[in-house]
C-alpha cells in the first residue's frame, strides 16, 4: 500500500515535469517579450515594452495582421458552413459510398502541410488564382472543415433522434425543422467551431507561406523574421497571437462545456 502511494507521487511529479516541458516555450516567449535583452537568458534583463513598440510601429506587421484577420474570418465562416453540412449528412443519412464520403471529408489533417502547400501552390498557379488572399482562404478551408465537422457532429450526437421526426409530424417542413430545431440545438457547437477554425487559420504558416505570394499573414511574417536571426519582436508578435488564439479556444471550450451541462439539467 505504501509503495502504491509512493509510485502515485512519482507519477504525479512526472506529470508536472511533462507539463513544464509542454508550457516552457509558451511561458518563455511571453516573458522574453517583456524583457529588454536582445539575447534573453538568466538572469533576466529589465522590464521593457521595446519590442511591442517596434511591432506597433511596423507597417508590415499591420498589413499582415489585416490579412490574417480577413483570412481567419472568411475561413471560419466557410469551413463552419461546410463542416455543418457534412456533419448533418453523416448524422442523418445512410448511403452508398458513405465511407468514401467521410474519408474525403476527414483526410486533410493526415497529409503533411508541406505536401499540401506544394500541391496547392502548383494547382492554384495552374488555375491562375495563386498569390491572392482568396487562395489562402481556399486552402485554409480545406484544412479547417474537418475540425468544424468533428465539433458539430459531436453536438448532433447529443441530440434526441426523435426531435427531428417530431417536428416533421407536427407539420414542419424539412427546411423549417432545420431552421427552428437543428440549428438552435447545434448553435453552441457552431460558434465553437467558428472560434476554433479561426484559431487554426490564424496560426497556420506552411500553406500560407507557399500560396500567399505578397499577401503575407502574421505567421508568414514570423517565419521570415525567424529566418533572419534572433529578434525578440517574434516574442511580442507571438504573445499577441497567443492571446488571440487563447481567447478563441477558451470561448469554444466554455460553449461546449456549458451546453453539455445544460442538457444534463434539462
Amino acid at each position: 500500500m505504501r509503495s502504491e502511494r509512493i509510485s502515485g507521487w512519482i507519477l504525479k511529479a512526472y506529470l508536472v515535469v511533462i507539463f513544464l516541458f509542454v508550457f516552457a516555450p509558451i511561458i518563455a516567449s511571453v516573458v522574453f517579450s517583456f524583457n529588454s535583452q536582445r539575447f534573453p537568458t538568466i538572469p533576466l534583463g529589465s522590464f521593457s515594452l521595446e519590442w511591442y513598440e517596434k511591432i506597433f510601429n511596423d507597417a508590415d506587421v499591420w498589413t499582415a495582421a489585416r490579412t490574417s484577420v480577413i483570412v481567419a474570418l472568411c475561413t471560419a465562416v466557410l469551413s463552419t458552413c461546410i463542416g455543418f453540412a457534412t456533419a448533418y449528412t453523416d448524422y442523418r443519412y445512410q448511403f452508398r459510398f458513405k465511407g468514401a464520403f467521410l474519408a474525403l471529408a476527414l483526410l486533410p489533417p493526415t497529409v503533411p502541410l508541406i505536401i499540401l502547400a506544394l500541391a496547392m501552390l502548383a494547382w492554384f498557379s495552374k488555375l491562375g488564382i495563386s498569390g491572392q488572399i482568396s487562395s489562402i482562404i481556399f486552402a485554409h478551408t480545406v484544412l479547417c472543415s474537418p475540425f468544424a465537422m468533428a465539433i458539430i457532429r459531436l453536438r448532433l450526437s447529443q441530440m434526441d433522434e426523435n426531435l427531428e421526426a417530431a417536428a416533421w409530424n407536427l407539420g414542419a417542413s424539412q427546411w423549417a425543422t432545420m431552421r427552428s430545431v437543428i440549428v438552435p440545438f447545434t448553435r453552441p457547437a457552431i460558434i465553437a467551431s467558428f472560434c476554433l477554425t479561426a484559431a487554426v487559420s490564424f496560426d497556420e504558416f506552411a500553406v500560407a507561406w507557399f500560396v500567399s505570394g505578397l499577401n503575407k499573414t502574421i505567421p508568414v511574417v514570423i517565419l521570415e523574421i525567424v529566418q533572419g536571426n534572433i529578434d525578440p519582436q517574434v516574442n511580442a508578435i507571438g504573445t499577441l497571437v497567443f492571446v488571440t488564439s487563447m481567447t478563441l479556444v477558451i470561448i469554444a471550450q466554455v460553449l461546449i462545456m456549458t451546453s453539455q451541462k445544460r442538457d444534463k439539467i434539462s
Partner: protein
Amino acid sequence: MTQSDSTASNNRSSQRLYALTWRLPIIVWQLLFFIGPLLFLIAMSFFLVKNYRMHEAFEMVNWQKMFSRAYFKDAYVFTLGMAAGATVLCSLIAFPAAFALSFKVSENTRRWAIFFLIIPFFTSYLVRTFSWYVILSESGVVNSLLQFIGLGPYTMLNTVFGTMVGYLTLTLPLVIVLQTFSMSQIDKSYIEAAYNLGCGRLRTITSVIIPLAKTGLIIGAVFCFILAFGDFVSPYYLGGSKPPTLSILIIDTTKSGQQWPRAAVVAIVMMLTLFTVAFASIAYAYRKQQR
C-alpha cells in the same frame, strides 16, 4: 398523372434537393481544392522544366534524376530514422503521463489536464520553436542554469537533440491525449482482477493495460510519425538542417530552384511512405483487437 402522384414526386425531388444541399458542399470543395491539387502533384512529377519554366509533359526524367541522387536517398533514410525515433521516444515519454492521468487522478483533474494539453495545438508552433531556439542556445537559459551547478555549456542547437526537442513539442501533447483517451476507458475491474490473480504492477501494465489500450497507443504513434515525418520547422531551426530532411528538400527545391516537378517527386515518395506506415499500423491495431 393524379394529383397525389404529382405531390409525391414533388416531395421526392424536394427531399433530394434537401439531401444534396448538405452532401454536396464538402464534395465540391474537396475535389476542387484537395483532390485536385494532389492529383495535379502526381501529374506535375512528370513535367519538364526548361529555362526556369514548367512544361506539361509525360517524362520519367524527374523520377530518374531524384532516385539517382545520393542526397535524396540520404535524406530519406535520415527522415525515416528521425521520425521513427521521435515516435518511439514520444510514445515512451507519453505513456507514464497518460497512465497517471488515466488511473491516478480524479476525473475532474483529467478533464482539465486534457484541456491544457489541447491548448498548445492552437498556439503558434513557430513561436514555440523560436522559444526553444533561444532557451537552448549556447548562452541561453538552460546553459546558464547548468553553469550555476558547474556544468556545460553544451551545444544543443543544430543537433539531433535539438530536432527531437522540437518534435516532442509538436507531438507530445497530442500523443498523451490520445493515449489517455484509450487508457481511461479500460474497465477498472480488469485491473483489479489482475491484481487479485497475483499479477505484479509491472505485469498488470504489460499484459492487461497495454493490450487493452493497444488501438489508442498505436493511433497515437501513427499521428506522431505523420507529424514528425512531415515537419520542417524543427529539423531546420533546431537541427540546423544538417542533414536536410525530405520536407526541407521540398522547400529548397521549390523556393530556390524552381524545380517544382522534382519537389513533387519528393512529396509523392513521402505520401506513399506515410500511407504504407499508417495503413500497416492501423490494420495491425485492429487485427489484434478482434481476436
